[in-house]
């Protein structure tokens, strides 16, 4: 049980860690100052959530690891994030589409976790859901605005959606960890979130004049850690380099 809970908490924390890192890559390079500042706020929220999830994971594990230890001293196969969030930023449209596809799931997940049988999980979810509500609002506006903007922005958003769609399915598949969490009343059954997710996407894509891809094929291997994409290793090489190069230092 505590193994499964540890796994589950790593999934939550690794999602926010990896996505927060990706979004922070934009700092200083966004299309306009207002967006630069907004993206940094999103990244800051996600980094903050990471600390909460991974500290709790370390506590549950009971091996003396804290959030930093988990973030900076695990290798690719130990990471439990969705493949979606490790995908490169691409252009601003791809970044915002990734954000929207994730936020829409993230908020449903957090809302369900607010009723968790585990009080610590419920508390983190409660705090995070306030932040993520705003992330989703902003991402939704941007997806609609760019989808319905110019011909170029529309084409880029459709291309982003087509490219990222194969990474959506993984959010809703269930495995042993999910089953154990569901049985213990800690987390929802992933599949149960799909109808609400689809309904939201339909509304947003209609407003954005975007077409939802027909093929529902989904890549897997991120949240189980069995097969991440090549991108994650490069991200970790950058993120963890200082900690790994100077293991005896404190910062």
């Amino acid at each position, binding site marked *: 049980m505590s193994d499964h809970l540890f796994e589950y908490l790593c999934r939550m924390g690794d999602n926010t860690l990896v996505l927060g890192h990706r979004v922070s890559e934009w700092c200083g390079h966004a299309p306009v100052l207002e967006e630069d500042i907004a993206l*940094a706020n999103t990244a800051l929220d996600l980094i903050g959530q990471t600390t909460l999830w991974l500290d709790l994971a370390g506590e549950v594990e009971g091996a003396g690891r804290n959030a930093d230890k988990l973030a900076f001293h695990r290798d690719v196969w130990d990471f439990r994030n969705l493949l979606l969030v490790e995908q490169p930023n691409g252009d601003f449209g791809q970044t915002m589409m990734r954000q929207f596809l994730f936020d829409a799931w993230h908020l449903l997940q957090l809302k369900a976790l607010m009723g968790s049988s585990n009080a610590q999980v419920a508390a983190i979810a409660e705090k995070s859901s306030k932040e993520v509500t705003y992330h989703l609002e902003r991402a939704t506006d941007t997806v609609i605005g760019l989808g319905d903007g110019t011909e170029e922005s529309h084409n880029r958003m459709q291309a982003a959606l087509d490219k990222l769609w194969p990474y959506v399915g993984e959010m809703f598949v269930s495995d042993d960890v999910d089953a154990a969490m569901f049985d213990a009343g800690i987390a929802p059954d992933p599949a149960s979130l799909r109808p609400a997710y689809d309904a939201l996407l339909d509304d947003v894509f209609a407003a954005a004049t975007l077409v939802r891809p027909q093929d529902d094929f989904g890549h897997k291997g991120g949240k189980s850690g069995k097969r991440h994409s090549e991108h994650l290793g490069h991200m970790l090489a950058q993120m963890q380099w200082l900690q790994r190069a100077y293991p005896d230092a404190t910062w």
Partner: protein
Amino acid sequence: MYAQMIKSTGEGVKSLDEMDPQERAFQERINAGGKIEPKDWMPDGYRKNLIRQIGQHAHSEIVGQLPEGNWITRAPTLERKAILLAKVQDEAGHGLYLYCAAETLGVTRDQLTRDLLSGKMKYSSIFNYPTLTWADMGAVGWLVDGAAIMNQVPLQRTSYGPYARAMVRICKEESFHQRQGYDIMMKMAKGTEAQKKMAQDALNRFWGPALMMFGPSDENSVHSAQSMAWKIKMNSNDELRQKFVDECVPQAEYLGLTVPDPELKWNEERGHYDFTQPDWDEFFDVLRGNGPCNTERLEARNKAWDDGAWVRDGLMAHAAKKRAAKLAAE
């Protein structure tokens, strides 16, 4: 400083008697500590100078995101990452406030941006230096933000209202920047041998460029005299540089680091430290575009602007469609 080489347009400072009644009233208002607001009459030179100065200041904040942004994805702990990101985000905010202040003078942000990207307008020389180790995040916060604060605090009293108000907001946010930098330096200077070495190396590389931030001596410059009369410049470059050195030396001593200046010593008589001037040839090289990172910095800003064009246009087009739909529905 962030606006290092502002040449004013005046030929020297006029006395009140030489001014026509309108200009005289304007100058007397400034002398009395009053604020000039956007719709008030102002001399052309005042307006032009301010646009250049505030514009350069804004550009410096924006380009200034890049050297520190260089380490956000490599910050060694989650907390350091968050602090650094928040700090660099603040700088974007500072740029935004300052562009808005400049806009009240009749330029647009896009115009100013184009002048930055084409190389026509400058930004502070300091941001053309590379950040090579994590200790540079310490040195930049401690020295670069430290120098910036020294310049910005008095500018809260500058004569142009929107500029002064932007500076008030900026100074409020700036207070944690220097402290977070010094905090990194403390950790590094009291850390492992490798960390100490990094800390000293960072101080060695940033000391001279930090002194250059205040600009060359302007004691005898008519341009400075005019800016001071208009209260858009509050102190001389040398005055601020001296103040900066006097503050930094004990801070370096506390860290156990050596300021890279063999001539540095306390002068009892003056009540200040004597120090070596930075390499002004290097400074002018950097201003001419030959600093270690000028090319990369401008390339990065140009890329962000060019790559972002479709986004700005796309959101604008959507807003127009929404407006049209709303009108049609009415």
